[in-house]
């Protein structure tokens, strides 16, 4: 008897996926085992390419050396300390940027006049790439933490503003009307009705900016300053220690993966009331 896809998915296969790819006899294909196998296979390919001389370069260490460098760096603190410094900057910038973004988004979404005056400015600033912004910013913020935190916050603000404004605009008039008939003040309506109702959209923006914050932190650290994982990457590169550079990149990848996962879990708690077809963990 053929195994039905519907059973494996725990829901009736009403969409007919089974017919799309034939009937699957191997439940393992529906788990991430294959995906991790792919990752392992690619890493093996990396190892072989370096060990067997398919790619000869001082900048191409075998993956096993990268792993040992990661292990060493994390325990000795040579990697752990910059990672912690980067995370601290990232979190500060992210918190500042996202709270500013939500407040600004709520204001722009509800106050028409403000929207007309401010949005064009935001739109003009948005496409500016980070490296182009650094020189004028150095003027006011120096080279250290203030600069980097600002740059991260700056990168985070835009997606959050855009998604907050979008969320606020999409709120059903009925909802706001309901709150008003109960005699809620404008400010209360904003906090108690508009904000929660726009939350799904805000969360989408917050999530995009989370990975953006990580990337920006690293790039900012590459441009200026002498600490953090971005600086470590460059220093390892210029110190001819490619395995340490890749170790740092590996750390960023893992941290990014974990951050995203953590965010999705958090989002599920915050948005328990909100149904979404989301299997992106």
């Amino acid at each position, binding site marked *: 008897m053929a195994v*039905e896809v*519907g*059973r494996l998915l*725990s*829901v*009736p*296969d*009403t969409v*007919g996926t089974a*017919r799309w790819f034939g009937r699957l006899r191997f439940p393992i294909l529906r788990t991430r085992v294959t995906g991790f196998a792919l990752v392992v296979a690619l890493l093996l390919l990396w190892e072989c390419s370096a060990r067997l001389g398919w790619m000869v370069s001082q900048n191409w260490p075998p993956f096993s050396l990268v792993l040992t460098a990661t292990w060493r760096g994390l325990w000795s603190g040579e990697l752990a300390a910059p990672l912690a410094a980067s995370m601290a900057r990232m979190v500060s910038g992210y918190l500042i940027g996202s709270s500013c973004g939500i407040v600004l988004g709520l204001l722009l979404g509800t106050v028409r006049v403000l929207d007309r005056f401010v949005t064009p400015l935001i739109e003009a600033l948005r496409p500016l790439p980070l490296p182009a912004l650094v020189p004028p910013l150095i003027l006011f913020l120096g080279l250290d933490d203030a600069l980097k935190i600002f740059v991260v916050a700056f990168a985070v603000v835009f997606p959050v503003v855009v998604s907050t404004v979008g969320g606020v605009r999409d709120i059903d008039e009925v909802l706001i009307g309901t709150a008003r008939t109960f005699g809620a003040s404008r400010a209360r309506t904003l906090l108690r009705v508009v904000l929660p109702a726009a939350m799904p959209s805000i969360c989408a923006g917050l999530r995009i900016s989370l990975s953006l914050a990580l990337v920006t932190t690293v790039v900012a650290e590459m441009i200026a300053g002498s600490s953090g994982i971005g600086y470590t990457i460059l220093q390892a590169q210029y110190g001819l220690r490619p395995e340490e550079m890749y170790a740092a990149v590996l750390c960023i990848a893992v941290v990014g993966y974990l951050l995203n996962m953590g965010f999705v879990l958090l989002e599920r708690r915050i948005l328990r009331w909100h149904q979404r077809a989301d299997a992106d963990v």
Partner: protein
Amino acid sequence: MSAFLSVDAISKTFTVGKQTLSALGRISIEIERTEFVAVLGPSGCGKSTLLQIIAGLIPPTSGRVMLDGKAVTAPPRDMVYLFQQYNKSLFPWRTVLDNVAFPLEIQGNSSGRSVRQRCLEYIAMVGLSGSEDQYPWQLSGGMQQRAAIARALAAEPSVLLMDEPFSAVDALTKLELQTLLLDIWAKHRLTVVLVTHDVDEAVFMADRVAMLSARPSTIASVTDIALPRPRDTIATRESASFLSLRHGLLDTLLKKDRPGPTPDEVRVTMDGAAHG
């Protein structure tokens, strides 16, 4: 021996986690060409599942569906399904005209003017002339369902499967659409299977009403509706035989064996009201 559309010992079980849920247990029914059959049952009895199996949208766990002597394993071309959720069934990215043209496109005869002409005819048939260039969100619920009906007709099916098609429109529109559909059924000599929980609708429209039991559903009874055709929105509903059939079915459905008013009593009341 074999009818035009035959449902042969269909059963369906779903597995949710480690639990198995038996939705349908051995259902058989034979439907003749141009017959109008209503499937009536309490909510959650698996009416829609049955209809989707007939449509070939989901496979049965056991049993089979035969259409004109051929087993149904995928949606057959001359069978069309009309969903309750017209707002999701109509493609929002297509105008009314393009929605109606969809089946023609799929069947591969989407050649120029004649297609447009034919679509406009179907649109006119459901009373939507003038709205052909509008997008679904610009139409009211009733109009959307009319568009869905026009699209179903455009496929020129011989069988129309309807899943509570009027349960989401307002009461008056519902009456209009029922009559509209009966007209179309008669004119196009369609075979119709209508799933509904509305006893009134089932009796008013169908030739036969199959009543499903609670889960796992089986056919509890099949009632012939010998009301004369064409049926009239108001008069048919006031006839004694209509009321009696309605009473009987409602009685079974609600599983109340309290002594209700007899059909005669009802008629008296109704007549009195009509004459008063």
